[in-house]
C-alpha cells in the first residue's frame, strides 16, 4: 500500500472526502514553494500534487503555464524538484505526494533512474498528462513495478468503450477531468459531472477525484459531494503568481479544503 492507498482508506473510515491541491515546484522559487508545500497538510490538504515544470505544458491554461515559466526562469530542475520532496518528507512522512507533469523531463533522465530517485525522495504517485494508456509500456508499467501509483486522467471524451482501457493500469485514484479543456478554464457544474463519476465508479473500486476549473470553496464542496474528492490547482497557483504571502495562500487553501470536506 502506498501513502495514497492508506490515505483513502483513512478518509473512507472517517467518511470524509479528499482534498487534493496542486502547486508548481519552484514557483516562484524553491524557498517559497517549499514553505507553501510544508503548510498544505496543516491547511487541510489530503494529497499534494507537485508540478514538475516543463517548457511546453500543452494541457495547461495560462496560470499554470506562467507558473512553470517562473519556476524554470528561477532555475528549477528535476533534481531540485526531487530535493524539495526529500526536504518535505523530513517533517511529514504520511501526506501522499503525486508528481504531475509531462513525459519529456522524465524520459530525458531515463525512466529507471527517475523511478528510483522519485521513490527515494518520497513520491507516491505520478500523473503524466501526455502518457495515455496506449503508451503504458513507457512509464506506467515500470512505475507500478517500482511501487509508485500511476494515476490516470479520465475525461468527458473517454467513452464507455474506452473506459476499461483507461482504468486497466490505473492505481491510487482516478482523476476525472471535469471539462474538455485546459486547466484553470471554465467551471464544471456538479450536476453535469455526477453521472460521469457514477459511470466511472461503476467500473472501478478506485476513488474518483474530480479536477479542472474548481476555484471556490462552494464549487469544491459541490464537486467533492458527488465524487470521492476534488482537486484545486490554478486558483492556488494564481495567488502564488500574484506574490501573495505564504500565510495568505494557505488561508485560501484552508477555505477550499474546508469546502471539499463539507462535500
Amino acid at each position, binding site marked *: 500500500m502506498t501513502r495514497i492507498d492508506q490515505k483513502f482508506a483513512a478518509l473512507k473510515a472517517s467518511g470524509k472526502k479528499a482534498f487534493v491541491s496542486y502547486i508548481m515546484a519552484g514557483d516562484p522559487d524553491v524557498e517559497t514553494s517549499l514553505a507553501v508545500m510544508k503548510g498544505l497538510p496543516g491547511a487541510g490538504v489530503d494529497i499534494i500534487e507537485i508540478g514538475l515544470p516543463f517548457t511546453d505544458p500543452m494541457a495547461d491554461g495560462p496560470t499554470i503555464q506562467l507558473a512553470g515559466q517562473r519556476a524554470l526562469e528561477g532555475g528549477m530542475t528535476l533534481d531540485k524538484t526531487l530535493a524539495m520532496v526529500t526536504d518535505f518528507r523530513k517533517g511529514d512522512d504520511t501526506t501522499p505526494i503525486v508528481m504531475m507533469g509531462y513525459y519529456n523531463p522524465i524520459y530525458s533522465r531515463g525512466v529507471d533512474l527517475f523511478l528510483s530517485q522519485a521513490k527515494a525522495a518520497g513520491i507516491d504517485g505520478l500523473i503524466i498528462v501526455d502518457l495515455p494508456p496506449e503508451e503504458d509500456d513507457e512509464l506506467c508499467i515500470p512505475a507500478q513495478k517500482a511501487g509508485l501509483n500511476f494515476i490516470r486522467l479520465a475525461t468527458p471524451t473517454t467513452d464507455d468503450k*474506452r473506459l476499461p482501457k483507461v482504468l486497466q493500469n490505473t492505481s491510487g485514484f482516478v482523476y476525472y477531468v471535469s471539462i474538455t479543456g485546459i486547466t484553470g478554464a471554465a467551471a464544471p457544474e456538479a450536476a453535469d459531472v455526477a453521472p460521469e463519476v457514477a459511470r466511472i465508479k461503476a467500473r472501478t473500486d478506485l476513488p474518483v477525484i474530480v479536477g479542472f476549473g474548481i476555484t471556490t470553496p462552494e464549487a469544491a464542496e459541490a464537486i467533492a459531494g458527488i465524487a470521492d474528492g476534488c482537486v484545486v490547482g490554478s486558483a492556488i497557483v494564481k495567488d502564488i503568481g500574484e506574490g501573495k504571502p505564504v500565510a495568505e495562500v494557505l488561508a485560501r487553501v484552508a477555505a477550499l479544503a474546508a469546502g471539499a470536506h463539507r462535500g
Partner: protein
Amino acid sequence: MAEDGLNSYMTGPDEAGRFGIFGGRFVSETLMPLILELEERYEFAKTDPSFWAEMDDLWKHYVGRPSPLYYAERLTKHLGGAKIYLKRDELNHTGAHKINNVLGQIILARRMGKTRIIAETGAGQHGVATATVCAKFGLKCVVYMGAHDVERQAPNVFRMRLLGAEVVPVTSGRGTLKDAMNDALRDWVTNVRDTFYCIGTVAGPAPYPAMVRDFQSIIGKETRWQLAEQEGDGRLPDTVIAAIGGGSNAMGLFYPFLDDPSVNIIGVEAGGKGVDDRMEHCASLTGGRPGVLHGNRTYLLQDNDGQILEGFSISAGLDYPGIGPEHAWLHDTGRAQYVSITDKEALEAFQLSCALEGIIPALEPSHALAHVMKIAPTLPADHIIVMNMCGRGDKDIFTVAKHLGFDMKI
C-alpha cells in the same frame, strides 16, 4: 530491398503509430479518442476511390498539379557537375507545397462533419494554405501564430485575414511556432466536438505523420514519372534533396523512393548561425537528441533536463525544435542522410537561383539548394539530382533585403 531484415522502408508506421522507436501517440486522454477516430476515418478514406478522385480533381484544377519537373540548365552548367532538376512545388496555388496536405486534411474534415478548422503556422505558409482551402469550402478557420512570427511575417498575416481566417497571435511561452502548436492543441482539447486540427507537417501524434506524408507524397510520385518522361523509362534520380523544418516537403519527395536503394536521400536542416554549443540553429537531427513533444517521440533540441530549446534560423518555416518522427527513423536506420546549412549559405543559394534560373526561392528550399551547390560539382555529369523547390520567395524578400543591407523603404 532494404537492409537488416527490413523488407521495406515504406510499411511504417506500425500499429502503435511508431517508426522504430519514434512517433507514437503522446497526447492527453481528452484527445486520445479523437486521434483514434481520425486514424480510423483516414484509414478508410485512404482506400476510398471517391476520396482520391476528389483530391485529384482539386489538385489539378485548384492547386495546378502536377507541378513541373524542371531541368535547371544554367545552374547545372554553373556548378559543373551533376545534372540538376528542380521540382517546382513553389508554383502551386498559395506558393508552396503546404496546400497538398491541407486539401487532404480538409476533405477528410468535411467527411467527418467537422465545421471548424484550426492550424498552427510559423512562416505563415501553412496558415495561408489552410485559410485558402477553408475559404473555398466555407469553413471557419482559426490560425495560431507566434506573436514574434506575426510581426516578422506581416504580409502572410494580412493574406490569412483577407481569406477570412482569424489569426490568433500566441504570446504563451516565447511566442514562436512550437508555442503556436501548444495553443492549437489547447484549442483542440477545448473544442473537441466540432473542431479539426489541420497540422502542417509530418509531426504530431499518429496518424498525422503518416497522413501528412501520404498527402505530400504526390511530390515524389510525380517526380518518378516526370523524370522517366524526360530521361527515359526507368531512370530514377541518383540523389533527391529537400529542406527540413518539420519535414513534410522532404517526406513527400523521399517517400516514393525509400525502397529504391540506388537513390541517395538527403535532408537539409537549418544550421542557423552554425550547429555548435551556442545552439543558434534548428538542426534537430544533427544537434538534438530523442525526446517527446507534441504527441510524438523524435529528435528534439533540448537541454540536459529535457526542457525544450528554441530553434534559430533565418527561415521562419524551419524554426521548429523538432522533426517528423519518420525522418528520425530514416536517420537512425541510415536510409537517409541529414546535413545542415547555415543562414549565410542559404542566402548565397537564394541569390544564385534568382540570378541563374529566374526563380526567387523561399528561404527554406534555399537551404536545400545550398547543399546542391556543395555536392553537384563533385558528381559526374550523368548523376541526376532532384531538389524540391518547395516554396517561392515572395514572403522572404523583406528578410533577405535586410540581410543584404538593401533599404526597402519607398
